[in-house]
């Protein structure tokens, strides 16, 4: 193959020039990993189970409505985890009920039934496909929300990637990589904030109470079903904030929610003569209509602003408000900026938990690069010395191949925009050590063939022919372990697996093709009689 030296040199030249072009300028082409340029790596878990339970609860309510519409008698509808049990349906109505349940809920639930004391009870099990479906939607929309928040926060080149798996096989983890983050704690807060906002009317007479018991007492034992007590963290009409926990009672059905917002921005509230941080928002047309109606009808009443299950303030409605409003009860200007940002990018559909955090400062990264480069240069120098000392001019041949090997490796990395991590640098250094291995295998074989009395040309031929397979085998085994490394690792370790793989592939070209070409030149053009090896 490629007998002509000219063709061989052209190929080598094209490969090297192409690699150099792909790699140049290195600053633009090489993408440093977070461990080298500094940044934050987070593994987040989306708590999908809670979302699924809430969804099943809602289906329970829908079943109740369906039964009531059809005037079906029943004793109980119980929604637990991923299962809904409907009990006490009279036998006469059971066939119609079964059909209804199957028609309306069959796409999400497996419906089964059994006799129980003269009546029929039904069990609806959320199917595995439905669980997967819900999980996927939740994770995907969480990812989208996080992406919007990160973009709005202003991180250059963030990456978000789904990862891990639940029992049903969906990815429920999100890997977030944020280069050059200056305030890691702030970013973590931003990512974890659910930012579910709702505005609910406050019960007109119920008191602010220190405990839930006090509230039930006020209502004579039971809070009305359409109301709920929530933790109140805001001020008391301008009074100093109290440290102890307080509750207020609000209507369960919100007037508007975060879904009705079209925009939110940090602003100031100067209503009490003080200038305090706030967030102003604007509403879409549906929100404006709902908000307008509610504020018109309930003037003088308080409206609680509920953020992530806590009422952060409860201002009094003084006039009809339609398409915009202001959220008060925020501690700092920075907090109002972050809240506005979260509201603009929408609420997270589920809670987010941080499973892993790795933050590297830029100075450590810089130090790592320096150390890696030093180690590589020393290794290279020692290897060059040994090769030239031990194999003389043939050693130079090996060094040339080594350079070609590294150039190709860098070119391939540039082409794929592969990320160079600290272990990746280790991979390049290791490649330097392993690259010459191939040359050694070939040279040793050539020496052996020469010892057995072969001519130089025959010895070189045999050396390459015999050693090539060994080199191939050796590289394949290393590639196998690199594949497992890639599978096993994340971030930095994958960077290592990648450089190792590209380095080995480049090695096949350099050690077998390029090195051979140089030997052929010596044999055919210079017509040497003795080989310096």
């Amino acid at each position, binding site marked *: 193959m490629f007998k002509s030296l000219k063709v061989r040199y052209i190929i080598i030249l094209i490969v090297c020039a192409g690699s150099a072009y792909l790699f140049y300028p290195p600053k633009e082409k090489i993408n440093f990993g977070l461990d080298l340029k500094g940044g934050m790596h987070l593994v987040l878990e989306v708590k999908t189970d809670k979302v699924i339970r809430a969804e099943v609860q809602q289906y329970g309510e829908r079943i109740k409505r369906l039964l009531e519409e059809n005037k079906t008698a029943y004793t109980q509808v119980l929604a637990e985890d991923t299962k809904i049990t409907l009990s006490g349906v009279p036998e006469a109505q059971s066939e119609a009920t079964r059909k209804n349940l199957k028609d309306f809920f069959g796409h999400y639930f497996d419906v089964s039934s059994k006799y129980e004391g003269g009546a029929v009870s039904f069990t609806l099990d959320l199917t595995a496909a439905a669980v997967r479906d819900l999980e996927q939607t939740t994770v995907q929309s969480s990812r989208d929300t996080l992406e919007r928040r990160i973009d709005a926060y202003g991180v250059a080149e963030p990456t978000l990637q789904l990862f891990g798996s639940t029992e049903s096989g969906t990815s429920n983890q999100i890997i977030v990589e944020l280069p050059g983050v200056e305030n890691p704690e702030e970013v973590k807060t931003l990512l974890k904030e659910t930012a579910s906002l709702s505005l609910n009317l406050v019960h007109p007479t119920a008191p602010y109470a220190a405990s839930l018991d006090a509230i039930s007492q006020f209502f004579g034992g039971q809070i009305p079903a359409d109301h709920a007590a929530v933790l109140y963290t805001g001020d008391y009409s301008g009074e100093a904030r109290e440290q102890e926990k307080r509750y207020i009672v609000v209507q369960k059905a919100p007037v508007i929610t975060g879904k009705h917002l079209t925009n939110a921005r940090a602003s100031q509230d100067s209503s009490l003569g003080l200038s305090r941080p706030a967030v102003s928002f604007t509403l879409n047309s549906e929100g404006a209509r709902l908000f307008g109606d509610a504020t018109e009808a309930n003037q003088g009443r308080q409206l609680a602003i509920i953020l992530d299950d806590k009422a952060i303030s409860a201002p009094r409605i003084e006039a009809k408000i339609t398409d915009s409003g202001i959220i008060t009860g925020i501690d700092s200007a920075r907090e109002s900026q972050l809240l506005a940002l979260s509201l603009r990018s929408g609420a997270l559909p589920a809670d987010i938990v941080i*499973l892993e955090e*790795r933050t590297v400062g830029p*100075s450590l990264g810089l130090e790592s690069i320096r*150390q*890696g480069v030093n180690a590589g240069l020393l290794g290279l120098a020692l290897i060059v010395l040994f090769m030239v000392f031990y194999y003389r001019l043939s050693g130079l041949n090996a060094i040339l191949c080594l350079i070609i090997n590294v150039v190709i490796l860098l070119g391939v990395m540039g082409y794929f925009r592969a990320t160079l991590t600290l272990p990746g640098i280790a991979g390049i250094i290791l490649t330097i050590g392993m690259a010459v*291995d191939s040359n050694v*295998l070939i040279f040793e074989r050539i020496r052996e063939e020469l010892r057995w009395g072969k001519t130089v040309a025959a010895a070189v031929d045999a050396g390459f022919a015999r050693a090539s397979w060994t080199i191939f*085998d050796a590289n394949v085994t290393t590639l196998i372990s690199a594949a497992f490394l890639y599978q*096993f690792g994340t971030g930095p370790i994958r960077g290592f697996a990648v450089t190792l793989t590209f380095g080995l592939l480049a090695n096949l070209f350099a050690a077998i093709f390029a090195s051979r070409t140089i030997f052929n030149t010596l044999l055919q053009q210079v017509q040497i009689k003795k080989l310096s090896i």
Partner: protein
Amino acid sequence: MELFKNVNVDWMSKKWLFLSASLILLVAGWASVIQRGGFSYSIDFTGGTLVKIKLAQKPDLDGLRTALRQSVGAADVTRFDAEEKNLVQIRMKKIETEETASFQNLGQNIYSALHGILDKDQPTGKQDLNRVGIDQLAAVLRASRVLENMGRLTANATIEETQRVYRDLAVTIVDHRTEQGGLIADIDRLGSLPGISNPVLSVLRQNYYPGSFTVLSVDSVGPKIGKELQDKAGKAVLFSLLGMLVYVALRFKFAFGVGAVAALFHDVIIALGLMSLLGKEISLIVVAGFLTLVGYSINDTIVVFDRIRENIKLNRADTFLTIINKSINQTISRTVITSGLTFISVFCLWLLGGETLDGFSFVLVIGIIIGTYSSIAVASPLTYYWLKLLGTKKEKKVYKFA
């Protein structure tokens, strides 16, 4: 030059020597594993938090430990790397659940605690110059209007230009800080940087103090991730061994695959034991080192096996024992040189590559030595005895057991 000329050693007769050498290494390492009650795993596997900080002064480890215990909890506080770098790592192990606030905010809490110990005398109105980011610094400088006052920015400069000029100034300072390893010891010394004139210095002094420490890195791993990783690490090493067995069995014979993988397994367990003996932790990067070792260490074995296969065809009269000895002798020079060259590069990496890669390069430094030894002392003898005891009639005909 040649290091090995006409080597003629009867390797196969030294099996007892090899067996005892391997046993000694194995027992020495694993005795330490047992004595220590198992391996010492890094937070990658146990879960926990590791914070690395750099201090301006020589650290008072006991003081840090006591203060941290009061504010955050029991922490393992040790120095690492070269003494003059004043580097300290703080490690807190075992977090009960991810949901606990302590895990979520540990980085912040540790910073606050350290701040309370190390920079407690700093004025409260000022910020830490060793912690401020580019954006915040640029905003403070811009608010001071220092460049306008100096006449370096004209009154009619556009907002974009003003922003850019102040940002450049902030970048100069932060880049310098990065160059200095994250710590600016003295604000006055920034005067030597381009564009940092006396008025700028005084703005910096008004708003900032040079904090006496900087956080280099924070790693927090929840127990769930740790468990997953433990699982994955074990599987990755086992599957890669299996992959080698399959590949060598395909390219050679099954018995050779067994010999090669036994040698690899030998390398891995001896290296694991020695890691424990020398007090090294098992971390993610160490597992990566082991996987690399598995892929590399088999190369020498393949070189020998290749030669055995060749010699069997060439010397039909020789016994299998003779062929093995001959093959090892013929290939010993390349085995030693190839391993030696790779050893040089990982040794340099171990020497100069820094703290983060220490575990990785160390596994390869000891692994390559053991791997080279085992490709001679374990792989071939094992293949020999496997075929001798379990080989089929046909195999026994090919490999002559005289």
